[in-house]
């Protein structure tokens, strides 16, 4: 009896130490995850020339809104933002609705040809033509230097399709049967019954597709070859980052070599980084419960 009490106390002491260490570790991880954003925000509100000297970690040293003024008065940056917003809105909507439309019939076990359709899709998950053949295809289709290169090749996604199929299967058949008795055809049922009931999965896929569209720089780099006005902001930023990096390397990283051009490009870079990142930071916590469910359905497929 005595022994068991003492072992219990001993154990809870160990547990206490574990809990404290665990909490400290978690706080550290939280800090490490949030701090990069904080760092960019603080530096973006600091005078650009002053910021190049470094050493701004917690709070702006010389508070200034000049960086944001520079960004919002730069036409090419604004144009890049417009393209990003347009491609995210249009690309995401098309992807979600198109993928859902294809997923709905495939969620029906009695669909003729279902196995064949699924086989065609599954292969695409593990084997692809690669960069150059894809580029040549887009060229052949006239998608180079064309806004639709962001939308049409991204209109469908087989992995998202699997997530949706699993979700649609959970919807009770009785709902569709009663709609059928009322004379609705499958397409009407999909539009009026299935889509409204599928908001959680649509939100998940919209988040995946939306973040993909918003963060994509490669499409702009690869397929926009001679029309800079179609470049999204991430491609614009990529050029700035690559350019700053190479100029830093070239000038052997001495603070004295800072030119006016560097400070303007850094100013634009920082402010544009904040503006491109904040919308996502604001959206994802609210969609959390959806995408956790979505990831589970998608990956833990039995």
């Amino acid at each position, binding site marked *: 009896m005595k022994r068991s009490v003492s072992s219990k106390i001993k154990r809870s002491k160990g547990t206490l130490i574990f809990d404290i260490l665990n909490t400290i570790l*978690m706080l550290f991880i939280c800090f490490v995850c949030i701090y990069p954003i904080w760092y960019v925000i603080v530096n973006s509100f600091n005078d650009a020339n002053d910021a190049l000297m470094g050493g701004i970690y917690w709070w702006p040293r010389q508070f200034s809104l000049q960086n944001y003024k520079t960004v919002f008065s730069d036409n090419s940056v604004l144009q890049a933002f417009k393209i990003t917003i347009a491609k995210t809105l249009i690309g995401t909507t098309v992807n979600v609705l198109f993928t859902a439309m294809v997923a709905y019939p495939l969620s029906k076990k009695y669909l003729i040809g279902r196995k064949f359709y699924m086989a065609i899709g599954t292969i695409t998950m593990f084997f692809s033509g*690669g960069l150059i053949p*894809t580029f040549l295809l887009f060229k052949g289709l006239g998608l180079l230097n064309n806004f639709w290169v962001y939308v049409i090749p991204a209109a469908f996604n087989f992995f998202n399709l699997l997530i949706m199929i699993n979700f649609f299967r959970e919807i009770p058949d009785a709902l569709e049967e009663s709609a059928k008795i009322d004379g609705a*055809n499958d397409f009407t049922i999909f539009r009026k019954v299935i889509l409204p009931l599928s908001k959680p999965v649509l939100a998940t896929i919209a988040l995946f597709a939306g973040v993909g569209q*918003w963060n994509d720089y490669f499409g702009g780099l690869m397929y926009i070859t001679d029309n800079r006005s179609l470049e999204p902001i991430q491609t614009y930023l990529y050029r700035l980052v690559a350019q700053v990096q190479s100029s830093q390397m070239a000038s052997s990283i001495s603070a004295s070599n800072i030119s006016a051009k560097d400070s303007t490009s850094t100013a634009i870079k920082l402010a544009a980084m904040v503006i491109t990142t904040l919308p996502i930071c604001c959206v994802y916590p609210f969609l959390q419960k959806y995408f956790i469910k979505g990831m589970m359905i998608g990956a833990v497929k039995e």
Partner: protein
Amino acid sequence: MTEKSVQEKRKKSVTMRRLMNQKYLQLMVIPGIIWMLIFNYIPMGGIIIAFKKFKITKSIAEAPWVGLKYFEEFFQDSNFSNIMVNTLGISLLKLIIGFPLPIIFALLINEIRNLKFKKITQTISYLPHFLSWVVLGGILTTWLNSTGVINVLFQALHITSGPVSYLGDPKYFWGVALVSDSWKELGWSAIIYLAAISSVDQQLYEAATVDGATKIQKIFKITLPSIKGTIAIMLILQVSGLLNANFDQIMILKNQINISRSQVIDTYVYQVGMSLGKYSYATAVSLFKSVIALFLLLIANFSSKRLLGRSLY
């Protein structure tokens, strides 16, 4: 008419009737199939240029066959061994060190008893996943230069004695790639494991507590065995992607100075294909990669099926 052909005819008409009944469903599925045929299968057919001397000014059909010339060229390329070592090295590092981290993180998060703190920690840990590599690249290039945050911190803690340019020295590249990738995806990758952990039967833990099991024992005897299926699936996916050393990340962090440790197959394909216009050669390199990746997938899937009874298909 024989009995058999009558039966067959009837079967056919039943199928036809079923097909008519589901004509709207078929109409909905077909655009998706056509999309895949165009955007997935035509490029697969385009791989043929790896075996041809293709010029952008002429069609693929007109290009003369050259057999395995471009593959041989790649194997004899002076960059070949470097590229293979980097691709495999970075990926293996991510596999051996990066793969267990989210599992450990999920186990630790699961031990937090304060639900609010637990939820906040989770939400915050997902944040870096939503930042683009371009934005992170912008941050990292500033942080990792010789006057950046990392140098200030490491020198203050006496980890390094003088300033180090982490992106300006090839020997640090693999480390930078590993740490920055783990940092970005730690929380996000843990979601799957957390979901699996939360579905473990709580009675098992209660019974173990009654038996006097310690926390560590519970983790190794209950939690890990219960989620081994999920771990296996994630491992198969990781192994099959062994040659994908995260294109976006490396594209952004590589530069002229660290290229001897940062060039991987994917970035090389982009460089020789798009910057130098060697389409056939680049396609051959990327086909070489795809074939090995496919083999890896099959091997991983087969071993998992044998050892754990779990597989992708």
